């Protein structure tokens, strides 16, 4: 699984951190999402898929 995150599109809803805290974090200054791991392990795959599905800004893309 390869993940990309568009920080310009991100609206800092925090949905991705709630879905997969091991893979996403937020910047201290403005809450914009940060991708911690571009190729997350299989155990985080479901969380990452949920993060992409609930991101209100459609800022997360996944390549399997």
């Amino acid at each position, binding site marked *: 699984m390869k993940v990309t995150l568009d920080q310009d599109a991100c*609206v*800092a*809803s*925090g*949905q991705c*951190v*709630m*879905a997969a*805290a091991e893979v996403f*974090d*937020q*910047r*201290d*200054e*403005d*809450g*914009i999402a940060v991708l911690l791991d571009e190729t997350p392990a299989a155990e985080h795959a479901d969380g990452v898929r*949920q993060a992409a*599905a*609930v991101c*209100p*800004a*459609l800022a997360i893309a996944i390549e399997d």
Partner: protein
Amino acid sequence: MTTTHEAPAYPMSRAAGCPFDPPPDLAALAAEAPLTRVRLWDGSTPWLVTRYAEQRALLADPRVSADVTRPGYPLPAQPRQESSPDDEPKRRPSLSFILMDDPEHARQRRMVTSAFAVKRIAALRPAVQSIVDDLLDEMLAGPRPVDLVEAFALPVPSLVICQLLGVPYAEHDFFQANSRTIIRRTATAAERTAAMGALTGYLDELMATKLAEPADDLLSQLAERVRAGELTRRYAAEMGVLLLIAGHETTANMIALGTLALLEHPEQLAILRDSDDPAVVASAVEELLRYLHITHNGRRRVALTDIEIGGVTIRAGDGIIAANDIGNRDPAAFEDPDRLDVRRDARHHVAFGFGIHQCLGQPLARLELDVVYGTLYRRVPTLALATTLDEIPFKHDGSVYGVYELPVTW
């Protein structure tokens, strides 16, 4: 195409005896088509978007605008009559950046998002738990029956948002009353103008205090932006009003209406009360957000260009209303959607909206509801309604749904 006189009036009324369900006429429209023309108070006929997939697609579409000053924007009521401040050439009912487009929307929103980051909010859990515990101690030591709204549902989020923003809680009667007027559908434009003026004036004075004596709170952070010339004091005050209203009204209604829904579904309440698994509480929070969907005025936009969706063409300048309450009951997104099931996975609901304007306070709302739903029914296992369902005053006239009073005993 539907002509003007055939379009049904929106918003619609809920059925008597079904206080948790969206209006039956709304459900009927959703069953018919994903988009339908409806008629508003001013005779305009925007598109009502009734299905989950089309709602998400449109709310996330950059070809739609949330700018309330654009012609065609579907106004929920006669606009407030505010005088334009010097730095604001256009008429604009002030509810801050939720009624603006990017890039200004993003610039202003990003000034406050750090305070609502998931980890920052998670750190508030002990403080929220302590507020909840203290209020319950007080309530349980007092007389029965009690109005749960006044004793618990409204003070919890009011105390929390006051702490976060740096607003003195002692003023709660003042800001709660004015908030209620602003979101009441039946309030006149003059009443809403006066209430918004009072709140904006109050936040403007508070901003002056924070400029003079900064503290460790969100209003002081905004004051710093004013000092740096990145934000006018007027905009800062408007942002404060938005956060204050959004921060206490919505959550208060979710606490009281959520409790009523659980009392009316005792088998669901039992699951929550008898489990010490945090995942069960978290799942119940999402399901109650989905099932109750308290913001029942629809999320409003206007099309910037022609958009083809759901078998129709929305023309540039057409108003768009995403009725997310009925979207959360879409069988294509949620199995058996009219059933309250606290164990289901409801995480993909649209109770907080969708797109760039999705609720920025959602981590705080989730935390408050998590602590409340996880504490109240375990601390007060015999909690019961002290009246009958038909005696309860529901907020049919509010843009945010809920109950005005909830008499309970134990």
